[in-house]
C-alpha cells in the first residue's frame, strides 16, 4: 500500500447524539483490496461509524476522502454513486416486495413508459443470484417469505452488486449458517480490488479475513494494528478496556440440590420448541447456548405463556402449573427479562422509577391512588440491588444509557418477588461496568436461593457464570455441559451441530 493513495481516509470523525458521544476523533485509512476488521463491544460506535461512512448520518466534524477526493455523502444514494455500498446489520430489505425488486432498489429498471420492466428485472435478478451462488432463491418470492439467513445473503449480494470501491459489511454473519459462502465471495471481490471494512465481534472471522483490525471503545479508536501481531487476550482487553480474565469473579456454586426444582419442564413441544426438558434447582444458574435462531427465543417466551405450547409439562417449585400469561408466571415468581429492551422492555414515556415499579404498582397505591413516597420506598432496594444510582430514578428512562436501562429492567424483575429469573441476553448493548453489576446481581440472586435460566450470546459469560449449560440446535437440546467441562470450544462444537451430543450425567452438579 506504500506510496498509493488509500481508498478511504477518515480524519477525526466525530458524532454526538444529544449528550452521548457516539464517535470521537476517529481516524483511519483503508488501502485498495484491503480487508480491515472493525471490532468493538456493543455501543462502542461501530454502527455510527458505518452510518457515517454509508451516508445515512453526516458526521458532526471531521473529513473523509475516497481515493484522495473529498467524500461527503449527502445521502445513501450519493454514497453509492461515489462507490461506497453497505450491507446493514438490521437488513434494509422491504419484506412485502419481491427479491428481484429489492435487489434493484432504489432504481429498478424501467421501460419507456416509466414502469418497471418486469421481465428484464427478473432476468437480471436471476442472473445476479446465480452469479453469487444463491440461485436457489426464487427472484419472485417476497422477501418476507424467506428465512433470515437468505435475507442476509440478499442484503450482501445487493451491496456487492453495486460494484463498490469500498464495501461495508456490518455483522454479515449474524444470521448466516454457511459462512464459507461469504468468505469465498469476499475473496473474489477483494481480488477485483474492492476494499472491505468488516464489522464483526467474532474473532475467528476477523483472524481469517482481515490483515488489520481497528478497535473502537466508547467512540474512540483504541487500536489499529495487524491482526496477526495480537493475541486474543490483547484484542479482548482493548475491546473491554480491561483484561478479559479478571472480568469474572469465581464464586462457589450455590446450587441447592436437595430442594425441589425451582422450574422443571418436561417434553415441551410448540412451534420452534422441539421436545425440551430440563430442571433448574434453586441457587442454580442454568445457561442456554445456541447460535442465532435455534429456538432459544421461543423457549424463553413459551415459559411465561407468550408463545403457545402444544404439549409438555411445567413444574414450578415442585408443583405442576400452567403458565398461560406473563401475569400468571409472575404470580408464581417466574419472570422473563426479554431480549428486545427497546420494544419489549422499556416504557419510553415513563420515568425510570415508574418503569421499575409497574409490576408492584398496586403496592404503591392507597385505594388505587398512587403514593409517590411509597413507590420510591418500594423501588429503592431493588435499584440498590442492581447498582442503579438513585439520582437516575426520577429521570425519563430514555435519558439513561443502555446499561442503566438494563439495570432498571432487572430491577423491575426483582421487584415482583421473583424466584426464578429467565434472562435473555441481559448484557447485550451494555457497557462493561453495567455488565459487572449484572453479574453481581445474578450471583446475589442465586446465593439467596433464586434460580436463573440464562441465555447469552457471549460464550465467556456462559462459561464463567453457569453451573450447567444447555446447548440448543434446531430447537432441541443437543447437549448439557456440566460446570467442570464448560469451555467455549465445547459449547461451540455442540451449537454448530457437528459433534455428537455427549451424554451428560443426569445428576445435578454439586
Amino acid at each position, binding site marked *: 500500500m506504500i506510496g498509493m493513495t488509500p481508498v478511504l481516509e477518515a480524519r477525526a470523525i466525530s458524532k454526538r447524539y444529544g449528550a452521548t458521544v457516539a464517535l470521537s476523533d476517529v481516524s483511519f485509512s483503508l488501502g485498495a483490496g484491503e480487508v480491515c476488521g472493525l471490532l468493538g463491544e456493543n455501543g462502542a460506535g461501530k454502527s455510527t461509524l458505518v452510518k457515517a461512512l454509508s451516508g445515512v448520518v453526516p458526521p458532526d466534524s471531521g473529513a473523509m476522502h475516497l481515493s484522495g477526493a473529498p467524500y461527503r455523502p449527502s*445521502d445513501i444514494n450519493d454514497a453509492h454513486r461515489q462507490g461506497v455500498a453497505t450491507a446493514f446489520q438490521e437488513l434494509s430489505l422491504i419484506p412485502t416486495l419481491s427479491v428481484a425488486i429489492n435487489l434493484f432498489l432504489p432504481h429498478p429498471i424501467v421501460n419507456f413508459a416509466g414502469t418497471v420492466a418486469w421481465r428484464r428485472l427478473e432476468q437480471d435478478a436471476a442472473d445476479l443470484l446465480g452469479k453469487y451462488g444463491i440461485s436457489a432463491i426464487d427472484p419472485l418470492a417476497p422477501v418476507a417469505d424467506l428465512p433470515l439467513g437468505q435475507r442476509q445473503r440478499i442484503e450482501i449480494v445487493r451491496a456487492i452488486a453495486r460494484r463498490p470501491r469500498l464495501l461495508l459489511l456490518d455483522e454479515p454473519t449474524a444470521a448466516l449458517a454457511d459462512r464459507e459462502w461469504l468468505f469465498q465471495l469476499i475473496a473474489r471481490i477483494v481480488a477485483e480490488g474492492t476494499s472491505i471494512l468488516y464489522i464483526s465481534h467474532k474473532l475467528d472471522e476477523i483472524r481469517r479475513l482481515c490483515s488489520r483490525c481497528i478497535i473502537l471503545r466508547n467512540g474512540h479508536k483504541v487500536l489499529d494494528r495487524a491482526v496477526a501481531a495480537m493475541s486474543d487476550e490483547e484484542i479482548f482487553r482493548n475491546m473491554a478496556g480491561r483484561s478479559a480474565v479478571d472480568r469474572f469473579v469465581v464464586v462457589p456454586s450455590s446450587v441447592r440440590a436437595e430442594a425441589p426444582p425451582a422450574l422443571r419442564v418436561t417434553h415441551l413441544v410448540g412451534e420452534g420448541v422441539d421436545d425440551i426438558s430440563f430442571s433448574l434447582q434453586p441457587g442454580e444458574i442454568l445457561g442456554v447456548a445456541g447460535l442465532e435462531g435455534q429456538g432459544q427465543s421461543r423457549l424463553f417466551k413459551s415459559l411465561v405463556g407468550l408463545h403457545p405450547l402444544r404439549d409438555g409439562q411445567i413444574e414450578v417449585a415442585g408443583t405442576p402449573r400452567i403458565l398461560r400469561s406473563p401475569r400468571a408466571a409472575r404470580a408464581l415468581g417466574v419472570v422473563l427479562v426479554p431480549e428486545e429492551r427497546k420494544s419489549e422492555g422499556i416504557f419510553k414515556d415513563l420515568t425510570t422509577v415508574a418503569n421499575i415499579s409497574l409490576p408492584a404498582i398496586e403496592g404503591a397505591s392507597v385505594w388505587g391512588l398512587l403514593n409517590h413516597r411509597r413507590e420510591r420506598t418500594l423501588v429503592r432496594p431493588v435499584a440498590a440491588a442492581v447498582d442503579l444510582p438513585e439520582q437516575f430514578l426520577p429521570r425519563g428512562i430514555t435519558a439513561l444509557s443502555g446499561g442503566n436501562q438494563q439495570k432498571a429492567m432487572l430491577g423491575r424483575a426483582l421487584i415482583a418477588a421473583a424466584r426464578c429469573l429467565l434472562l435473555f441476553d441481559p448484557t447485550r448493548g451494555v457497557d462493561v461496568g453495567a455488565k459487572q453489576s449484572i453479574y453481581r446481581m445474578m450471583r446475589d440472586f442465586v446465593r439467596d436461593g433464586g434460580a436463573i435460566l440464562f441465555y447469552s450470546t457471549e460464550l465467556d459469560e456462559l462459561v464463567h457464570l453457569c453451573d450447567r449449560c444447555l446447548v440448543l440446535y434446531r430447537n432441541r437440546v443437543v447437549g448439557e455441559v456440566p460446570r467442570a467441562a464448560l469451555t467455549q470450544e465445547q459449547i461451540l462444537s455442540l451449537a454448530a451441530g457437528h459433534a455428537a451430543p455427549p451424554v451428560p450425567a443426569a445428576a445435578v452438579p454439586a
Partner: protein
Amino acid sequence: MAQVAPADFLRTLKGAAVSLPGRLSRFAPAVGPTVAVVLYLVMYSVYAANESGALSLFGIGNLLNDTVVLAVAAAGLTLTVLTAEFDLSGIGVIAIANVVVATTSGGTAGWLVSLIAVLAVGAAVGLLNGWLVGVVRLQSLAVTIGTMIACEGVALMILAAPGGEVAGSIVNGLTGNVAGIPVAALVIVGILGLWFVLASTRFGIALYAVGTDENAAQLSGLAVRRTRLLAFVLAGAAYGFAGYMLSAQTGSGDPRASDSFLLFMYASAAIGGTSLMGGRGGVFGSVIGAGILTVMQKMLFALGAASFYTNVFSGIIMLVSILIGTLPTLLARLRPPRTA
C-alpha cells in the same frame, strides 16, 4: 405481443403480481380485493334480481354515477394510507372544489378553468399536508384534522350557504354517455388504468416500501420524504377531481355536501383490503369498496329495507372485511417457520 409465449406471459403476470397492488405477498393481501369483488358481485346480483332497470344502460350509468365520486376520493386516500399515514383532509378539499366549481364554471371555458382550479387547490392542500407530514414529520392524523377544518372553513367563506350553479356543460358532459358508455365508467376505468401504471413505476414501488418499513426504505436509498409528499399531493388532486365530479352530480354548490364522505372513504379503503398500517392493499380494492357501499344502498332500497339499514350494513361490512383481511395473517402465524 405475438412472441410472448403463454407461459412467459403468465410468468410476467406473476412477476407483476409480486409487487402490484393488493397482490404483494402470496395470497395474504389478495384476500381483501378478492372478497370485495365477490361481495360486489353478490350484492349486484341481488340488486339486479329485485330492480328491473338495474341491467339497462341507464341503470348501470346511474349506479356508476353514484359510485364515481366516492371511488375517486377513496383512490386518492388510498395513496396516503399505503404510506402508513392518515389523511382526513379529503372532505375539506371536496367541499372547496364543489363551491369553486359552483362559482367559477360559467362561461365558455368555465369547465376547464374550474377543473384546473380544483386540481390546483387539491394539490396545494396536499402539498401542505405532505410537507407537514412527510418533511416536518408531524402526526398525520392531527395535521389533516387541522387542514380539513380549515378547508371546510375556506369552502364556507367562498359560499356560505348552498347555492351557485354548475355549468351545464359539466353536468351534462360528466353524467351522460360517450359513444354509449357512461362517462362515469370511463372515469373509473381511467383511474384504475392510471393506478396500474403508477403502481409499477418507481414511485409506486416506493409507496409500498415506505409504508411497509420506513427505515429499510431509507437504507435502500428510497426518497422517503419525497414519496410521502408526492402521495399527499396526488391524493389532494384526486380529492379535487372527486369534488369536480360531485359538482357535476349535484349541479350546485354546497359547502356541507361532503360532510358525510370521510367515513365512507375510509370504509371503501378498508373494505377493499388496504391496511391502515400501510404497505398493503391498493386503489383497485378501494374502488371496489366504493362500489360495494353504493350498490349496497341500491340493493337495500330495491329490497325495500328501511334506509337506516344502509348504515348498519356499511359498518358491519367494514368490520367483516377487516376481519377477513386479518385471517391470513393469523393463519400465517400458525405456519411452521423456516430457519436458515
